[in-house]
């Protein structure tokens, strides 16, 4: 039995050494592994930066559409918010977070700790960065550039998820108060007629910024919720930009 084991051992050793000598097995050069590590680091950084951009864009799109104001209204507001959320972007963000976690699990000090720690760290980092950048002027500027055709490859993203198409949520400045409602001008320069009762539009005047929730048919919106947005509200970026003569809103 012992001799059989020894035979097997020398057999395996000889086989492998012969293959090495004959050049049938070759070790990969060090540069291959260096390149692999560089690619891994770059991929991780790219995924991380894209995640931060994506999360900040989601925050920005919720902010600019006025959707962030909705939960304070009612159950209906929350329902509209849920329906209006950019789910495709949210699922893409979740997918990228899982991908980033898989990348992170290759690092020794990360895989030695429970997954939940690194996952939570990634989520908190993405949320904080997303809110900080989402509330900065970066996306307002990008949106402005996209509208002026200076960001060709990003334009569809901003037109699809930016201000104009956000489910049942609309916002704009009151242009005129009329008998059966009001007329607003959206930040996208569209003129919308908003059907609203007297009680809904009381306290509103021309040039007020309003948030409207309701089904849109052509250029008419039947308001279910109508709310004036406070000029000093930090959640809403466009009013402030307008007051500073932003190219975004001043034609």
């Amino acid at each position, binding site marked *: 039995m012992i001799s059989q*084991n020894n035979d*097997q*051992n020398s057999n*395996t*050793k000889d*086989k*492998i*050494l012969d*293959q*090495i000598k004959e050049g049938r*097995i*070759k*070790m*990969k*050069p*060090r540069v*291959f*592994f260096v390149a692999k590590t560089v690619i891994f680091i770059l991929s991780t950084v790219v995924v991380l930066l894209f995640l931060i951009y994506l999360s900040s864009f989601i925050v920005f799109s919720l902010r600019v559409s006025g959707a962030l104001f909705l939960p304070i209204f009612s159950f209906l507001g929350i329902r509209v918010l849920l329906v209006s959320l950019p789910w495709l972007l949210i699922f893409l963000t979740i997918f990228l977070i*899982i991908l980033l*976690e*898989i990348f992170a*699990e*290759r690092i*020794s000090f990360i*895989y*030695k*700790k*429970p*997954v*939940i*720690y690194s996952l939570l760290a990634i989520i908190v980092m993405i949320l904080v960065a997303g809110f900080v950048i989402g509330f900065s002027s970066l996306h307002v500027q990008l949106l402005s550039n996209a509208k002026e055709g200076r960001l060709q490859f990003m334009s569809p993203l901003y037109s699809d998820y930016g201000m104009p198409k956000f489910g049942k949520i609309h916002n704009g400045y009151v242009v005129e108060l009329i008998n059966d409602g009001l007329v607003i001008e959206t930040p996208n320069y569209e003129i919308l007629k908003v059907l609203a009762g007297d009680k809904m539009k009381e306290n509103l005047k021309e040039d007020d910024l309003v948030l409207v929730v309701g089904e849109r048919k052509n250029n008419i919106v039947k308001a279910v919720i109508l709310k004036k947005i406070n000029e000093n509200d930090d959640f809403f970026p466009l009013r402030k930009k307008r007051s500073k003569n932003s190219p975004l809103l001043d034609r």
Partner: protein
Amino acid sequence: MEEQEKNDEQIVELIQSGRVELFGVLINRYEKKLLRYAGKMLDDYGDRQDVVQEIFIKTYINIQSFDTKRKFSSWLYRIAHNEIVNVFKKNKRLRFLPIFDLDTFFPQFTKDKSDFYLEAERREMQKIIEFGLNKLDRKYRESIILYYLEEFSYKEIADILKIPIATVGVRIKRAKQILKIIFEKQGYKND
């Protein structure tokens, strides 16, 4: 002869610098251990010979990626672990490999034991582990083999399996509990 006295990491350094014939020294040192490890993990004897050969081939191919400041045996067993997982996948014994295992997901808590107690327990476990090993789930089986038979530390096992250190402790503890039940069913009493 001089090379026989060098440690694994020094041998690898020489191989990396071109003395490829020294790879035979590593094969001499680890073949029996890897055959035992693969044998405990796989049921088929034919498999384990091929698997061990494949492990050494992959070790040689990737040897330039080994950092000689780290422990060679942990790195080698990491390759062995991956190769055994590949065998399971090929034989469809492992149809689904979860990205995250639940016991690696949340924090786990295990108690540290004194070295004396560990050594005594290790000797006892080495004797009794043979009987119920094939009844253990793969992930418990692997942790208990690496700890009691291959004599790696929790930290080294964590590096081989790429799982949290506390999870290693929990898997070993659960494996022992399962083995205890098996032994009790067979009428074995552990004093």
